[in-house]
């Protein structure tokens, strides 16, 4: 699925779109509010869905190699976060959908989770 389609599907606000690439392909996603759990995964998803709207949401993507993040639950996005997304080159979107609804919508369009339980 292309980022542009995800933006439409989630009625998402675009805060930073890396390289203006609305046709960047998203194949997999993870939904999580615990960043350490993401960092302990085996595979890197293309997209992170989270209710966290702090700097760590962006830095976790940067450290782990995730290209884009959707902040759910209509959490406010402040300018500092947008600046950081810019600096770290992470696409930053937000939606009013809950984590449940946003995940459900994306799953129903064929997005998968690259999740593999470790040991």
């Amino acid at each position, binding site marked *: 699925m292309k980022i542009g389609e995800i933006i439409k599907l989630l009625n998402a606000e675009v805060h930073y779109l890396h390289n203006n690439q609305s046709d960047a392909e998203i194949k997999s996603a993870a939904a999580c509010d615990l960043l350490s759990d993401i960092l302990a995964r085996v595979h890197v998803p293309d997209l992170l869905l989270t209710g966290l709207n702090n700097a760590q949401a962006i830095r976790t993507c940067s450290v782990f190699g995730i290209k884009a993040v959707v902040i759910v639950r209509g959490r406010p996005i402040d300018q500092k976060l947008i600046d950081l997304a810019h600096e770290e080159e992470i696409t930053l979107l937000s939606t009013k959908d809950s984590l*449940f609804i946003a995940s*459900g919508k994306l799953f129903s369009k064929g997005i998968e989770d690259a999740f593999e339980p470790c040991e």
Partner: protein
Amino acid sequence: MKLNEIIKSCGLELKNSAEDMDCDVTGGYSSDLLSDVMANAKDGNVWITLQTHNNIVAVAVLRNLAGIILVNGREPEESTLAKAKEEGIAVMSTPLSTFEIVGKLYGLGIRG
């Protein structure tokens, strides 16, 4: 949809039964932040989380949730199970991730 049907369709492992396994699930809520669940989950929702600490039972009781689904193959802590028994809160687990199990529930027609 009833809790029982959800368990069957999604292949959930039942860790603790609720008093009423035939209750209607009003929707789903997924979050790993307890205060967020306290603030935003709705009565009768099934809660998807990777938190296993016994505080989750208290939150489920306070919010009248239909049950808790633990993801990523996580086992509830002993104290969590004990508390769930005491309070009659359904606890289930799945090897799937949050994204995957939510996707399945959504596919069954469960909404927010």
